């Protein structure tokens, strides 16, 4: 098998998602495409040759040479603070991928899908939502998205739009610190009731993808297993504080 080559990508456009996260739209000449849920490695190199690498989930569906990454600024994050800060339109960065063949959704999979996102863990799940739309899939999708406050919701406008226009896609929100007025659910951590109400019953044998910080993923996966979901159908991916 040939080596995954480092490619040079150029920043085409930036979109702010939240006060601490932004989406980088990269041009990656020769990009081979990717499956939703895969990630890339990004390498930064300083003038003295020092370099730093991190992995980032891809946020976009496959679309020619364009690859979108959403970078959450991590306190003291060596790479994230650069990518979410000084990195400017037109600048190059090195990248290789796509990587990972496990935490991926394939449009031919005949199971309904439950996506459970904690914070910036929504990124690879958003790629799945977008890939579903791009494929014209009618597969029932449910996204349960846990965020601290309404201000921390990434892709807020797009999710609102897609919840109306993407038939068969349901989006529900769990706010852990502050819920918006009229939300109906008081602020608090994800519970078994949330997953029962907004997820799929285990008998539907959904494909489940859980992504977020370790504590969130552990808790959500345990709730799902306790509710009767087959552990083999629950795929997890974690964003640690060291992801930055």
């Amino acid at each position, binding site marked *: *098998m*040939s*080596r*995954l080559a*480092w490619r*040079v990508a150029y920043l085409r456009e930036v979109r702010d998602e939240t006060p601490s996260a932004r989406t980088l739209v990269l041009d990656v000449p020769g990009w081979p495409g990717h499956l939703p849920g895969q990630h890339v*490695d990004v*390498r*930064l*190199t*300083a*003038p003295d*040759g*020092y*370099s*730093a*690498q*991190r*992995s980032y989930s891809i946020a976009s569906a496959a679309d020619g040479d364009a690859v979108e990454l959403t970078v959450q600024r991590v306190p003291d994050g*060596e790479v994230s603070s*650069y990518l979410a800060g*000084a*990195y*400017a339109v037109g*600048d*190059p*960065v*090195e990248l290789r991928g796509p*990587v*990972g*063949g*496990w*935490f991926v959704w394939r449009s031919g999979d005949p199971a309904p899908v439950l996506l459970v996102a904690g914070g910036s863990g929504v990124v690879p799940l958003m790629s799945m939502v977008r890939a579903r739309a791009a494929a014209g899939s009618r597969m029932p999708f449910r996204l349960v998205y846990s965020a601290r406050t309404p201000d921390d919701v990434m892709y807020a406008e797009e999710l609102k739009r897609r919840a109306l226009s993407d038939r068969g896609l349901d989006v529900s929100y769990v706010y852990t610190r502050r819920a918006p007025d009229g939300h109906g659910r008081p602020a608090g951590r994800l519970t078994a009731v949330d997953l029962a109400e907004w997820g799929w019953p285990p008998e539907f044998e959904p494909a489940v993808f859980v992504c977020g910080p*370790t504590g969130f993923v*552990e808790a959500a*996966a*345990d709730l*799902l*297993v306790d509710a009767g979901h087959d*552990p*083999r159908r*629950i*795929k*997890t991916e*974690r964003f*640690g*504080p*060291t992801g930055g």
Partner: protein
Amino acid sequence: MGIVTPGFTGRRRSDVNLPPGQYLTEDFPVLSAGPTPRIPLDAWEFVIVTETGQKHTWSWPQLMAMPSEDVTVDIHCVTKWSKLGTRWRGVPVSAFFDEVETAADFAMAVSYGGYTTNVPLDDLLDGQAWVAYKFDDDDLAPEHGGPARLVVPHLYFWKSAKWVRGLRMMLEDEPGFWETAGYHDYGDPWREQRYQGD
């Protein structure tokens, strides 16, 4: 050296020698592919199945009765973090092979929950690998692979199978879980063997 990233200077250089592409962390991040399995100790077993189908089984009390070693090792995760000086207690894998006869060169580590990873047998012997059950003097937490996990510190940490249940000996190398998903069959961090083809 890669192309220079405009405006990137990076952190103060650390004076420790890390494998290429790695950075230091003080945390102990968790990486796994699915829910954390919970294995009661009275049901726990460690099984080596040889290429001829012979089974050798150890129970938890038997594991506890084997001579253990305390080791302090550096670990390197393919997701780029490295953690130095981690302290483990476990039984060296060699000890299990005292009573196993095999001509196989490769082992598939098999875990509760279905995880697998392939490692050459030579990399598991001679003080290079342990079935570890304590971390920092505490029982190994489930999310870090407890009650027992492999620790093979000279390879990327996905080779250190959590919730290890046994070894299946193989005459030919076969890819395990992450290896099938595009990760390297051997995984030497010093040669930066992250992905197939590296």
